[in-house]
């Protein structure tokens, strides 16, 4: 019950964020955005034709009404139809979001697990050669553009100039084998790029924790190193770790990996968003923005609840 009322209050405090995000994107995309009337009407249009198109696009309504319409769409979770294909946006999301999750999830999990593991290892050997090796590799990994990684991995793993092990592009989940063959290269690329950043972040969090007084106490009472790092220190580091992981979830789920999906031609939400950006398909963009903001508010709530679960000093107030 306490949890429930806390959740309600927390969600309520998310409203200004949602309003802010929608307002900013509405102002940019719609208020200051391009007038699409003349893209849609034919040559030498009559005034009636123009008016009809404008009414269809809602341009005849005042801006305030159009923004309130947007808010109504969010509350009812009904974002209308795509301007370019006419497809129901809800159907579009239901079709593409699972694809995006399927593409991004393995890389996301692996990238963070390996990041924590390597971060622990580097922190444990701080200043000695395993640390230098890991951090050196992380610096190299961080310095290679995502784009280059994708192209290079495609050449090396998927093209006839390299190992030619996986399909060049495309997507299929007809069988588990298909899934593996299509998801491997995107996953490897994601892990490669994320690992450098993650390892650095997790190592610095862990190293910071090792300088705390309670770690010296633990050593003064004979706690073995393995237990010290994997239990005592790690539990104290969970708050920044959880924060980092949780807050990247909305961007992984809703906007997907736009670059990966458009490069590999994977029909996920990222590709849809990219196409919508290129064609200026506002209803889709508005839906993506709104959903990201809502997800962030929910994630914030979940994160707070998880904080209490890992740190007794945090209370739900």
């Amino acid at each position, binding site marked *: 019950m306490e949890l429930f009322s806390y959740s309600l209050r927390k969600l309520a405090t998310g409203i*200004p*964020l949602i309003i*802010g*995000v929608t307002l*900013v*994107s509405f102002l*940019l*995309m719609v208020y*200051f*955005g*391009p007038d699409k009337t003349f893209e849609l009407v034919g040559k030498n249009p009559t005034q009636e034709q123009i008016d009809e198109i404008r009414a269809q696009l809602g341009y005849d309504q005042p801006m305030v009404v159009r923004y309130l319409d947007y808010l109504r769409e969010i509350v009812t979770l009904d974002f209308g139809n795509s301007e370019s294909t006419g497809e129901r946006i809800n159907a579009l999301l239901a079709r593409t979001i699972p694809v995006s999750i399927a593409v991004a999830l393995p890389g996301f999990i692996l990238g963070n697990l390996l990041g924590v593991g390597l971060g622990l290892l580097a922190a444990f050997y701080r200043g000695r050669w395993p640390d230098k090796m890991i951090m050196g590799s992380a*610096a*190299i990994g*961080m*310095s*290679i*553009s*995502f*784009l*280059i990684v994708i*192209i*290079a991995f*495609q*050449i090396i793993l998927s*093209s006839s*100039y390299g190992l030619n092990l996986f399909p*060049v592009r495309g997507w299929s989940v007809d069988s588990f084998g298909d899934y593996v063959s299509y998801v491997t290269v995107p996953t490897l690329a994601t892990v490669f790029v994320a690992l450098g950043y993650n390892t650095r972040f997790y190592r610095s969090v862990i190293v910071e924790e090792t300088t705390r007084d309670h770690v010296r106490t633990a050593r003064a009472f004979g706690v073995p190193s393995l237990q010290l790092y994997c239990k005592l220190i790690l539990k104290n580091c969970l708050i920044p770790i959880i924060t980092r992981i949780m807050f990247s979830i*909305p*961007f992984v789920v*809703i*906007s997907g990996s*736009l*670059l990966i999906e*458009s*490069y590999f031609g994977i029909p996920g939400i990222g590709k849809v*968003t*990219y196409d919508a*950006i*290129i064609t*200026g398909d506002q209803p889709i*963009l508005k839906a*993506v*923005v709104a959903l*990201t*903001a809502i997800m*962030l508010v929910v994630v914030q709530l979940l994160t707070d609840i998880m904080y209490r679960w890992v740190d007794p000093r945090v209370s739900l107030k």
Partner: protein
Amino acid sequence: MNAAAEELDPVGLSDAAPESLWTKGLYKFRRDRVGMWSFAVVLLYVGIALGVWLGFWATGWADLAGGKWEPVSGAHWFGTNIIGQDIFDRAIYSTKTSFEVGLVVAVLATALGAILGAIAGFFSGSWLDELILWLMGVLDSIPFLLFVAAIAYTLQSIPEISKYSMHIAMIVTFWITAGRLVRGEVIKLKEMEYVDAAHALGVPEYTIIFRHILPNTAHILLVQATITFVAAIKSEVILSFLGLGVKDSMSWGLMISESSQEVLAGFFNNFLAASVLLFGLVMAFNLFSDALQDALDPRTVAD
């Protein structure tokens, strides 16, 4: 003159020149070999970019100087692209583009973050802080690429500015990291007793913020500026690749975009030239930034 006076000094100060924290930081940086090497590489890139800017080299980046996909030769060091432009010139020219984006975004985003972060931190808990925090939260919640596209939309009608829509989008999103860092630091610093002392002397609030507090975050800002520089360069490449970035000019992102079809046909020069130059700059800058951070870390500098 009081009794407990001069006797205190004999073992006091050394005769060496006064040392600021910067002098100490410089001393430490000089002894960091990786830092010095990476700094040298960064300087090399700066030289290249300056040369392009002054018109010393890579002036022919847009000329059709040869045939399609010519291999590496004395005339074309990295060969030519699909329409016969010199890849070496184009790659060198792109260095200037990168620095332009990197410097503009790093300087302006860090400055904006410093000012807004300092104000939010100093007045933490007030409506001003709430407003700035809300703005940070909002801008952080809009997917980056969408934001760039939206800004580009908005500025379409103003041609003089529209070619900077990428810069503006980056500044508007990248200041947030600096802003949060500075805000956190200022919240800590404003509790320091030297700030109380300034209040007790009647120093005006904005003088306290900008003369007493903000200079003590300078090391954070400098490091954050280098990090933003790298982020801007990397984003520029991806945005240009996606067609949302540089137009009417040359950039490594555009070269990679050109090459994405070529590589499947087995022509790698465009891709390699852009990637290697980009990697070199980003790597050198990352290492430089790390060394700078170590050198300016007050925990090790102060004692």
